[in-house]
């Protein structure tokens, strides 16, 4: 019996489980962090944060020293005199955008990214974006979204960014056939793999949001069916629904079974029969299962504790429990989107503690008490927990590493196995 079948027979898992809601200190990044991967993904886009020195310092610290080239992000740092009057701030912003675009004529899409201070002083970046778009059109399109910590947690920055792109998508032509839109930033290599699988299945046309270049924005409309590739895209999904697109309900493409169910959702919508589906996915699925095997051997029955971070926690908990036999103790998430995570929650054991939000000190207490074998947490907590003798996996690596799809299933499992393997190797 496959893991999936076993779950199908069991109850509704965590679907109706109570959620521990916490409102204390949240040890999480803000949405500005998404710029670190979004600017690599959309290659002709520039992200200009309108914020403070703290914002600039945050992005730089989160990005480490990844200075491959002159970065396609920057901060317009507000100073004392900008806070005095709004008209002044707008003039300043216009000047800085002019300076920036003159320096970087390769930029076709500019995001003005709101921050905590710009939100608090109520600087209206949507009006600035309109004004600047008019001025710099057609060479550059200027959009805006908020990555502020008062409104967004970590990956919600990507959600806000993609949601700001949705009104820019062309309307699909009236006579167009059904099309598939895959939503959420994926590594290019993963995108290419999925594209090949959809082609073999006869599903298409397929487009991805965000695209690699701003000139390749997909069109959208009532014939669009979309699959979420990431679990943190609530606002983007809502915006797409408003444009008439319909979501294909699926778990997220993590692991052999997650990926299969995700592809299956699209196959069903396209009426692909079971034999053809099996013929296409069998080889890569077998490869993925084989890749997971050695890791399952190491990880089965290990106790794992998730601190809230990227909203990937619930799909990851499903993956490690159903495909690796691990035992999640607490699964924390900054925000629980029940609808999008429905099929994941149904596959989680009902005795897992689900927590939403955070009170980091109390959660650390719970973590220590539950003595997990592995903790998934942010960079601020990892070394201190290691020093206490608790093995950790940095959660940010789960965003910066290609983990989706069949060919990455083994890599994903390895990310969880590595900290434990390392401990067995070290004799110092």
């Amino acid at each position, binding site marked *: 019996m496959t893991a999936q079948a076993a779950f199908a027979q069991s109850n509704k898992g965590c679907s109706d489980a109570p959620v521990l809601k916490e409102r*204390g*200190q*949240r*040890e*999480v*990044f*803000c949405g*500005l*962090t998404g710029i670190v991967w979004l600017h690599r993904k959309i290659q002709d886009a520039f992200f200009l944060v*309108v914020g*403070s*020195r*703290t914002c*600039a*310092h*945050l992005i*730089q*610290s*989160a990005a*480490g*020293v990844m*200075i491959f080239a*002159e*970065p396609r*992000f*920057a*901060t*317009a*740092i*507000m*100073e*004392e005199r*900008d*806070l005095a009057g709004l008209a002044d*701030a707008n003039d*300043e*912003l216009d*000047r*800085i955008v002019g*300076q*920036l675009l003159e320096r970087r004529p390769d930029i076709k899409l500019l995001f003005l990214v709101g921050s*905590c*201070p710009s*939100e*608090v*002083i109520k600087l209206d970046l949507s009006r600035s974006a309109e004004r600047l778009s008019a001025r710099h059109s057609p060479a550059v399109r200027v959009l805006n979204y908020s990555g*502020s*910590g*008062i*409104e967004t*947690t970590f990956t919600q920055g990507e959600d806000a960014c993609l949601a700001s792109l949705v009104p820019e998508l062309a309307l699909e032509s009236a006579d167009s056939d059904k099309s598939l839109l895959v939503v959420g930033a994926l590594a290019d290599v993963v995108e290419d793999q999925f594209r090949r699988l959809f082609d073999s299945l006869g599903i298409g046309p397929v487009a991805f949001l965000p695209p690699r270049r701003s000139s390749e924005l997909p069109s959208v409309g009532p014939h669009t069916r979309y699959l979420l590739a990431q679990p943190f895209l609530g606002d983007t999904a809502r915006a797409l629904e408003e444009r008439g697109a319909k979501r294909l309900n699926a778990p997220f493409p993590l692991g052999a079974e997650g990926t299969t169910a995700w592809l299956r959702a699209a196959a069903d919508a396209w009426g692909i029969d079971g034999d053809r589906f099996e013929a296409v996915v069998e080889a890569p699925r077998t490869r993925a299962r084989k890749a997971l095997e050695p890791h399952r051997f190491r990880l089965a029955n290990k106790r794992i504790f998730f601190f809230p971070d990227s909203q990937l926690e619930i799909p990851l908990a499903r993956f490690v429990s159903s495909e690796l036999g691990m035992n999640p103790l607490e699964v924390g998430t900054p925000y629980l989107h029940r609808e999008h995570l429905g099929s994941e929650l149904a596959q989680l054991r009902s005795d897992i503690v689900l927590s939403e939000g955070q009170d980091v000190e109390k959660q650390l207490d719970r973590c220590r008490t539950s003595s997990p074998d592995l903790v998934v947490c*942010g*960079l*601020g*907590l*990892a*070394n*201190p927990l*290691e*020093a206490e003798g608790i093995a950790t996996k940095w959660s940010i690596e789960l965003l910066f590493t290609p983990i989706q799809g069949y060919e990455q299933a083994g890599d994903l499992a390895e990310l969880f196995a590595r900290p434990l393997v390392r401990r067995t190797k070290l004799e110092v």
Partner: protein
Amino acid sequence: MQLTLWTYEGPPHVGAMRIATAMDRVHYVLHAPQGDTYADLLFTMIERRDQRPPVTYTTFQARDLGGDTAELFKTAAKEAFDRFQPEALMVGASCTAELIQDDPGGLAAALQLPVPVVPLELPAYQKKENWGAAETFYQMVRRCAASHMPAGDWQRPARDPGRQPRCNLLGPSALGFRHRDDVTEITRLLDALGIDVHVVAPLGARPVDLARLGEADFNVVLYPEIAKTAADWLARTFKQPATTVVPIGVGATEDFIREVAEIAEIDPTTALASHQSRLPWYSRSVDSTYLTGKRVFIFGDATHAIAAARIAKDELGFEVVGLGTYSREFARDVRAVAKELGLEPLITDEYLEVERAVADAAPELVLGTQMERHIAKRLGIPSAVISAPIHVQDFPARYAPQMGFEGANVIFDTWVHPLMMGLEEHLLGMFREDFEFHDGAAPSHLSHGGASEPISVEVPLEPSSNADVMPLWAEDAERELKKIPFFVRGKARRNTEAFATERGLTAITLETLYDAKAYYSR
């Protein structure tokens, strides 16, 4: 507004965190929105600290702004005190909380905690990290030493001759460039002089230790960026003299010994005669002749940049072709040194401006921060890191101070290592067109796998009035120019063009190139 790609300094509350984290048994309650907790990773990841910084954030969100953020702060402060039981509590606001004006100081005072509460006013839209660290350290010193303050007309009595002189070491903090090892090195040096170290602060100090600062005879200011404000107050209040020489480099360390000896009224002769640095001999040994006149560009915090300039010029025989700092508070000191060197100082915190200046100066070695390391990498120039801001590799496992005589040894190795070794460089000059030994190849002791292929950065030249009459390069001259090592090629091109333009030449021939070379020969 200021357009910023990379910042040299964080916001001032990060400076306050560096003090809180360096100290023992203090806690900092920071009114800040969700996301500002990113700063924890600076300490846990970059510095590999095994504990979280002692900081509690209120992490308010939009929904809290409509409600009572002041109450949120009070709850956070109360809970943090109950949980961590600090001996002093620092309270303050990050940039966003500054805008909502909740007055953390007043709110914390209302809690009537049984320990000193130090409110920090760090204007986030005017000031930066080092200023924040200095101000925080000063406020902590002031508050903790307040109960020991003598009357205004008090004079420090002469030291009992039966007691060894004693001093405080001020300035070492968390996230400091080699602060940990500098403290060890300077403590050893002072011990050899017969001077006791009374309190090291803020690194490792408890609030009760700050209260004892006045008991020392004088203060050693290791890092003026962090400790000068506090040291000035201690000088006024406790009549403690403070050192002004930062002991980085052999000459500066000797000057430091003399200064300390004078303040402490002891004889420095033995200490000066018996010093152990290998730098002077290494620098005089024949192998080092290839270092002569190497063009070096220096940028960092003021303390390290000034020290580097002196070492480069006087102790390694380099030619300093650029000197600058992002520490505006200490710009005057850097200007003075630049003037002595006949240079225009670069006082800026704009990364792009620094990049332009480096490219313009065409140095053979860049001494800077992690940012200049990247600039140098892009330009294909060797580099070494001398100053914060730093990254994980600036916290080496080995003992690697910058200060004192051992620090000078470390500096010699660190700066010379990225360069071509003497004979290798000469061979390169001889066999410039050798297929394996071309000018893009890395020094043979550095295996970069060919990564040193220089990336040329187009530096927009100032439009000159006679740009339209720029002389043309003859083909053979252009070919000859390519045989000049890449790191000086840009300079040679510009010199030759200037030489030709001044003489009203319309074409640059092979002859012109070598005439110009002779003209500018050093």
